[in-house]
């Protein structure tokens, strides 16, 4: 069953992935089976994706994260919230994130 990301939920990186910063390229490496597919692909996050990832620390809700990011990045707050939610959803689908609670 697919877990839907929600604004009031808290997420953190799965223990089954490791992140690597190689010469400025930020990549997520699955270490267990069934997560992502690194057979022929690299899963990387750009500057904005990484800024979101760094805040997915198991303490803040998506709403909190979007609020913090709107101080650093241009864009309407509702667009930023949508972006954070969208990336979270994708990472949840790939099992690279896990839910850590709700507020």
């Amino acid at each position, binding site marked *: 069953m697919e877990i839907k990301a929600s604004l009031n939920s808290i997420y953190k990186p799965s223990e089954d992935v490791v*992140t*690597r910063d*190689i010469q400025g390229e930020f990549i997520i*490496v699955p270490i*267990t089976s069934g997560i992502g597919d690194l057979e*022929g692909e690299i899963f*990387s996050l750009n500057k904005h994706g990484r800024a979101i990832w760094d805040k997915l620390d198991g303490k803040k809700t998506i709403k909190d994260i979007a609020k913090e990011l709107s101080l650093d990045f241009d864009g309407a707050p509702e667009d930023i919230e949508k*972006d954070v939610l969208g990336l979270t959803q994708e990472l949840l689908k790939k099992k690279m994130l896990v839910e850590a609670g709700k507020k």
Partner: protein
Amino acid sequence: MSKDFVSNVSLHDFSLWEKIRNERKILAFDLEITARCNNNCRHCYVNLPADDKKARESELSPAGIKSIAGQAIDLGALWCLITGGEPLLREDFLDIYLYLKQKGLLVSVFTNATLISDKHIQVFKKYPPRNIEVTVYGVTKETYERVTRKPGSFDAFMRGLNLLLKNGIKVRFKAMALRSNVRELPRIAQFCRERTKDYFRFDPLLHLRFDGDAKRNSEIRSERLSAQEIVEIEEADSERSEALKKGCDKLIMPETEHINCNHLFYCGTGNGSFTVSHDGYFLLCSSLRHPGCIFSLKKTPLSEISKDFVLKVRDMRSNRREFLDKCRKCGLFNLCLWCPAHSHLETGELDKPVEYFCEVAHARAQALKNNIDKQ
């Protein structure tokens, strides 16, 4: 803010490669965790007996391996190959494997598969390797054990291989083509291709031992196929001969004949990868064992060695006329086993031509030219 946070790109198209193209950054390394092996293959350039006390004592400890791997990771390494000898001989193999996986490396393993157990399978299923490359010495007990000289090894190989395949572990195959198994090579190729979606490769070019053991080197020489035999097996394997024909413009490069340069190294050695020998030496590639080209990682951190040392080795020159006129200008270098590392293993020098390699390269080139003329 942009919505395009994520890129799921093929390894081939990953932007990192372009970024570091000319920077000699470390991306991959081979860990030769033991020189010992439970088989005793006639053609092997590494294997020492499984119970060789001296070889065992010289092996890097798990802490030593982890320290070197950690340094490589800090320098940006993404790929790691665990090899040997037979790496599964080490009782701490899984501990080492899991450490490398959990550090975010894409880990491959070279093995003969004879020691694969349920415990390995459990770990490989949960923490999948990028691939396991299994060497196939024969597909009958008689041929397999003629090569390995170990009674019971064929049954152990089949059991281990079937365990891997039955559990969906990604397996690749390779075979060495030698006098003791050449008659079975077509069946070996068929056996491998039937069992993997990934590649199978065979290699007829046997090089000599890292330890210089004269008796074993003589065994390796006696296992070498003649230049003509090598051409025949390559032509008989349609996949191989098609690949050779396709790559022809890169395999025969007459323009090299005008090169006026005395650099020893013209391969990619040390560019983006390195090998750690079982006893903790930094090698630019697994075959380059010349004392002037290796460095102990037990005494010096990787970060201090890698860049300057690699540049120094790669800048080595030769004044040997024979090399400069014969090998350095040869347009067949991509068809030849000759390189400074193999020259050293054959002759004790980094820059001496090797007649056998030369014969093979010319025969392969002639066969390619004949095939092209026929088309």
